[in-house]
Structure formats: C-alpha cells, structure tokens
C-alpha cells in the first residue's frame, strides 16, 4: 500500500532553477533511513525493514478498507483523518513521543477509530496528568472526527525499549 506522501520527499526548490541529469540523484528515499557513523540512529522493527518488504515482513500503520478494490468510497477522507490524528498525537504528547511520533498505528473497526502505539516516560511519570490528557485527547478527537476514538497507547520507560537495532 502506498505509504502516502508522508515520507516521499520532494526535491523541488523554488529559489533557483536546477537541471540534474543523473538518475542516481533521483532515487526513492522513502522509508529508507541513512546509517550513521557511530550507530546512533535508532530503528524499530518497522523502520528497519526496507519498503520492498511491505506485505512480507513489514506491515502497515493504518488499517482501513478504503484501498480495497470496489470498496473505495471514502479514500481521501480516511487519509485526511489519519493525518489529523497523527499530528494531534504528535503535538499533544510532545515529551512522550517515541521515534518522533511516526509509529502510531490507526485501526478502524466499524465507526470506531483506535489509535495504538507507545509513549515513553523519561522523567518521573505523573499518572494523573496522563489520564487527564488521555481523556481530553479521546474526547477531542471524537468530537473532531465525529467518530468514537479510543487511545490504546502503552508506556515504555525510554525509547531504547522499542529499538530493534541501531545503524
């Protein structure tokens, strides 16, 4: 499935014209992370697989039926909703994100949207604050999208616990 637009980088620069004729400069860089010299780049299992493993070793981060043949009634709507949810989560839990909020799984069952993923608590965890934020986020997203939204985010002590390897 198309990992829609999130990871595809565009090379259009607007300040001056450029003509580049080598085909190597135009490789597709989506979902391929560059290795670092001292192995500090953290990779989760999902990130570690190359995009040609999609469907084999790699699975999708959103699950909905709008990309199936003959089921495409609300395809663009779902894409937009996904993006809204991801940006909201990324912005609302700024200290708690794991891997800059990329690894949020969104599932749709019937009318219900379920957001699953990991959040980290690096400093002392204030559970009351977390509960307040969960209640707020669920209610806010539900009213925004007019669909029940459930958060199923689990907590992890630090980012290292979701690491698969470092490159």
């Amino acid at each position: 499935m198309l990992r829609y637009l999130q990871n595809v980088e565009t090379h259009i620069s607007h300040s001056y014209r450029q003509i580049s004729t080598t085909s190597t400069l135009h490789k597709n860089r989506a979902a391929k992370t560059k290795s670092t010299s001292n192995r500090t780049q953290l990779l989760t299992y999902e990130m570690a697989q190359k995009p040609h493993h999609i469907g084999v070793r790699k699975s999708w981060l959103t699950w909905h039926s709008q990309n199936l043949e003959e089921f495409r009634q609300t395809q663009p709507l779902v894409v937009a909703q996904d993006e809204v949810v991801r940006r909201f989560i990324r912005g609302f839990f700024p200290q708690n994100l794991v891997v800059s909020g990329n690894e949020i799984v969104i599932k749709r069952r019937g009318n219900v949207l379920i957001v699953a993923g990991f959040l980290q608590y690096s400093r002392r965890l204030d559970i009351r604050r977390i509960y307040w934020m969960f209640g707020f986020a669920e209610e806010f997203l539900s009213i925004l999208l007019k669909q029940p939204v459930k958060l199923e985010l689990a907590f992890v002590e630090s980012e290292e616990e979701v690491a698969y390897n470092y490159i």
Partner: protein
Amino acid sequence: MLKLANTVRSGLLTSTIRNVRTLAPTVNPAEQQQVQAVLPDKLYSSIEIEYRGHDKAVLKSYTTFLQQVCQHLEIPQGRLEVLPYIRWVQPALRSKFVHKKYKLHYETRTHISKLEIQNVTGSTASTFLEYIQRNIPEGVGMRVGFTELQPLPLTIQN
C-alpha cells in the same frame, strides 16, 4: 408445492466505516404487531460471503474464525474459495524530467476469499451475519450475496 430457485443477487457492500445494513426486513414498528404474525421467514439456499483485504494472513485468520463459527453454531458451510489477488499498479516517473525508462513501481494487492453458507433462514442469516460483521478485523471489507428461495409466482402455479 413446486419451488424454483430464484437467484436473487443483492450486493451488500460492507466496508468497515459505513453503518452496516443487516438483512432484517425493515418493518415499520407501528405495523409490526399486525405484520409479525403474517410475514414468514425468508429462506436462503446459499449465502456467499466475499471478504477482501490487503494482508493474506489476516484473511486466513478470519477464514478460520468463520469456519469455527459455522462449526459451533452448526450452520452448514459450503465451499471456501481463495481467489487470486487483484493488483492495481500505478507507476511514477523516477526522474523529474525525461528518462521515461526509469520508473518507480507502486502497486496495491487486494486478496479475496469467498465462503458459502447453505440452507439458512432469514433470522439465522441476519444473526450470523451480524456476529460476523461485528468481529471483522480492521482493513477487511465484506460483501454478501444471497440466493433466496421463493415460491413460484401465482401465474405459473395455476
């Protein structure tokens, strides 16, 4: 009384976003009392459930679920078909300008499975389908086709 199999193919697209339309006949509740005693149950000689998804493993697990449900609820199960996937391909040009030979290949695969249920009544069918649809995994879409048994029209009977 002679009955002729009247193949009624009513497609019911069930995606996992929209409200699910079940089979129960939409009777006006005000008339329900009078109509209830009169309206007999529908009979289906076969119900074909076709479900599609992007992940073959998910469909396989859903198939085992369906088969188990049929077994436990003692609903006669027909054949199970796993159809080849439908591929939707859209390439994008790799380079900004020229170089038509080099493209990026993007495709979508929709895997399809079909399961058939035989000889059920309308009430059974609606309950069964409701249960199935409440438990459908995310990312799987279902379409149901009914083959109803109806008595011959009076013009032919007489």
